[in-house]
């Protein structure tokens, strides 16, 4: 399973802060994003950053591993 986390403005649009997504071998970050964007188009309008296991992920070709924690995030506004 992949744990997908949402925060702040994104969770407001997905209605869920955690999704459990079935892991498929070879699955990339980009594929996961595309699937979720199709389910939550309104939320993904504001998604512009992703992280895998708490690390900024800039390469959407990255292959995920089973048990990964993935998040798709809106622009930060802390500080």
């Amino acid at each position, binding site marked *: 399973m992949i744990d997908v986390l949402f*925060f702040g403005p994104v969770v407001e649009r997905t209605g869920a802060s955690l999704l459990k997504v079935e892991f498929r071998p070879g699955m990339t970050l980009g594929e996961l994003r595309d699937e979720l964007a199709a389910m939550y188009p309104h939320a993904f309008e504001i998604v512009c950053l992703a992280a895998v296991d708490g690390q900024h992920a800039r390469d959407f070709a990255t292959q995920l591993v089973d048990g990964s924690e993935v998040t798709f995030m809106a622009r*930060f506004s802390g*500080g």
Partner: protein
Amino acid sequence: MKDQVRIQQEDFSQDEEIMALKASSMRMGGIATFLGCARDFSEGRSVSRISFDAYGSMALSEMKRIRLDAMERYDLIDARIVHRIATVSAGDNIVFIAAGAEHRAAAFDACRYMIDELKKRVPIWKKEITPEGDAWVSPHP
């Protein structure tokens, strides 16, 4: 002694943070700090309170990384970063950053670097609670 990098609900004391920063060395000649506060007015709307959401574990590890990057890049003696995650009112403290160096130029440059990087790299989101309703802040790109 409190950690050099923290996310916490409660307010912090600048005196206490500076004392902790100075404890690391008697060679610190310049300390630059940045304190971010809640404003009562933003983009033309009056703001009653501000609340936050954060990806806590990643936010803390990014803040620690920013501190280490700044220490190395500007040859700091020590640095501290504290961010509150709470519901705050106008005038309340949100974030505190301190950079201590032998001389002032490095302290200023490092302090500015840390708050700029925090805004870019740390997964924290601010929601403004206004009389007209709540709205997540969308920073300008």
